[in-house]
């Protein structure tokens, strides 16, 4: 019997699938540890990163363990890839997660520590509880879902950050252990019609200008208003010790890509000046952020009137 949560479509009658998070029980595919979470913590939504959803809001971030990909630069390999012997998950109901969020003044529950696909039923249940409690929901995903899962996810989440590492199959094969990027491209198109989406491209390696511009063109074809985060990633896991990205060279590429997409951000390193939202019409600073380091862009101030630029009146796509 095949699991249909992601495009691996593992045959679970043969044993554990690739992510190890689903089992076959009474001829049904079930999560191994449903509604059990590795931790929860509060962050500003910009740290996820979401720049066009609930600016400045506190969110409760949670997740489980395991992943359906095997990125050789994974920054969360202790959860996503390597099983820690003492890593116990904690049972928390969806209602309790929502209450914890509300108690801390959070506006949303975001599933972000590991890949949401490997705990999709729990995420859907917790998202429903969060919605019933008046909260918004979001998640991070690598996008390697089946069409069925994509539809479930898109209908359950208010905002989704999809990681698009490259447009090349061989990049995915070499660095993530995934056979193809095509399902991810398909799902980006589908999700963009169901929820607010942002795209993040982690860059651990040198990336060519040509490739950056190609990705920008792909996103623009889907929807020019999708915010795109170019994310400097510190080499970790199997690539620890590698030279990290040359920021100076990347800045020049980012400037070129701005001709294609209006909302491009380049961050995840301390002091980045490319994390503010400027009006595409008149370049007025609409949302000011400060990048304090890894995953650390923080909201500073907003200057908009009803989602419009106060100077030229241009409408800006932002969920508030």
């Amino acid at each position, binding site marked *: 019997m095949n699991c249909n949560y992601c495009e691996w479509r593992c045959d679970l009658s043969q044993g554990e699938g690739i992510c190890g998070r689903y089992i076959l029980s009474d001829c049904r595919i079930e999560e191994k540890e449903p509604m059990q979470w590795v*931790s929860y913590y509060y962050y500003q939504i910009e740290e996820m990163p979401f720049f066009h959803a609930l600016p400045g809001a506190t969110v409760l971030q949670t997740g489980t363990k395991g992943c359906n990909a095997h990125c050789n630069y994974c920054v969360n390999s202790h959860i996503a890839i390597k099983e820690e012997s003492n890593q116990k998950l904690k049972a928390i109901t969806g209602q309790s997660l929502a209450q914890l969020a509300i108690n*801390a003044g959070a506006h949303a529950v975001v599933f972000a520590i590991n890949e949401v696909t490997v705990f999709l039923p729990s995420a859907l249940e917790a998202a429903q509880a969060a919605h019933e409690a008046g909260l918004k929901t979001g998640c991070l995903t690598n996008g390697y879902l089946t069409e069925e899962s994509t539809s479930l996810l898109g209908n359950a989440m208010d905002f989704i950050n999809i990681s698009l590492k490259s447009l090349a199959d061989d990049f995915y094969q070499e660095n993530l252990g995934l056979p193809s990027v095509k399902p991810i491209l398909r799902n980006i198109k589908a999700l963009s019609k169901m929820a607010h989406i942002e795209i993040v491209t982690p860059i651990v390696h040198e990336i060519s200008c040509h490739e950056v511009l190609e990705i920008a063109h792909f996103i623009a074809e889907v929807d020019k208003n999708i915010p795109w985060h170019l994310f400097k990633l510190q080499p970790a896991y199997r690539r620890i010790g590698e030279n990290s990205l040359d920021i100076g060279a990347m800045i020049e590429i980012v400037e070129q890509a701005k001709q294609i997409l209006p909302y491009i951000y380049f961050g995840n390193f301390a002091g980045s000046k490319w994390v503010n939202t400027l009006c595409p019409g008149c370049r007025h600073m609409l949302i000011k952020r400060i990048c*304090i380091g890894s995953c650390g862009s923080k909201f500073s101030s907003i200057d908009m009137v009803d989602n419009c630029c106060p100077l030229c009146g241009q409408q800006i796509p932002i969920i508030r």
Partner: protein
Amino acid sequence: MAKIMLDVGGWQTVVDFATGDPVDDLNDPIMEDIKQITPSIPYPGDTEPGAIDWTVDAALAVCDYYNPDFIMLAFATQQLIKINQHLTPEESVAINERIFRQVSRFLENTDYQPMIIGMGGMQDIKSVIDQSQLSTRLITSMCAYHYAGLFMSSASDAETIKNMEHIEYVISKEELRASYPDMRETYYRMLPDFLLMSSDGYVFNEIGNRGIVHKKTPQLMRELPVYTTLDRPQHILEVRGILEHAMDKGKKVALIMLEGTGTDDFKLPFTMMDNQTEWFVYDQGLSQYLAAATGKKFYEYDYPPVVNSAAYLNTSEKYPFSQHFTFLPEDTIGRRPDKRTAAVGTRSGFIHETTMADICVECHSRQLSMSGVFVLVNDPKGEKRWG
């Protein structure tokens, strides 16, 4: 204006310390000099043993450039590695020995009189404190391992914590204010409803924010080992006074803080000094740094040992590169107007947040993810000659 220079793998930018805004028109010869120095001291990473050597490389570079009368060297690498990684006994010993070798290298290459403090050894976690009877989670902090706060408590939670196992001390917000009426209003406002101190080796949470299971935890040390060629402190709160007194006599002094080093692995002849004020034990982390740099008691600081950090995520206030701190101590050894001061180390944030020295050089990391090198060139106090 105080400024921060951030060096991320050779890419450099300067921002205003208070606002975090980029400083485009630099026009600052000191910052220009600092920009030349940092490329030669790239930070290896929080859990890289090479970060121990980095502290001394950075300290020597600062001494060469600024020749401070006071310098703090903070070695956090041992604690960070031992909390986050399983080590063999040999690896564990090697890390500690590397620290002492590096301390010797610093002292052999300079003319500083040292005050070396072992902030406490590392131990196995005895147990995680059971919070299942509480309706909410206790708030903990990586700045204070043995402390937790109960915020927004219900009557039943308040009752439950009084009977929880492995809790050494519980005090309510109001009891704290009644005991220490001079505490600042901001300190009082940020206090939890109840502040809890665990017994030695018992932790409130064995998992970091990113879900990494902690392998060790710091010892709760009521006394700390100290080695010095200056007067011997009997209490951690005497350290600042002794260092300042020595500076008054024209000596150059180095405060050397060793996280993860206790009595068993302190490689120099040491004496013990008290490390508590009444019931409060200065924990390996922020409170020990503050105690040494300010000489003040725990209730005289700007912030309580545990704050509800979720309430302080907004950076629109002051000092966005200084965690939840929106005001920083002014009465520290580092702010002395008539002496040059510096601080260097691998405890991101605490280096400047506790000393407020003229020049602070730190790693810049978040949740073990390395961002680069952070240099604060503080507002000079008094008539100091730079460069």
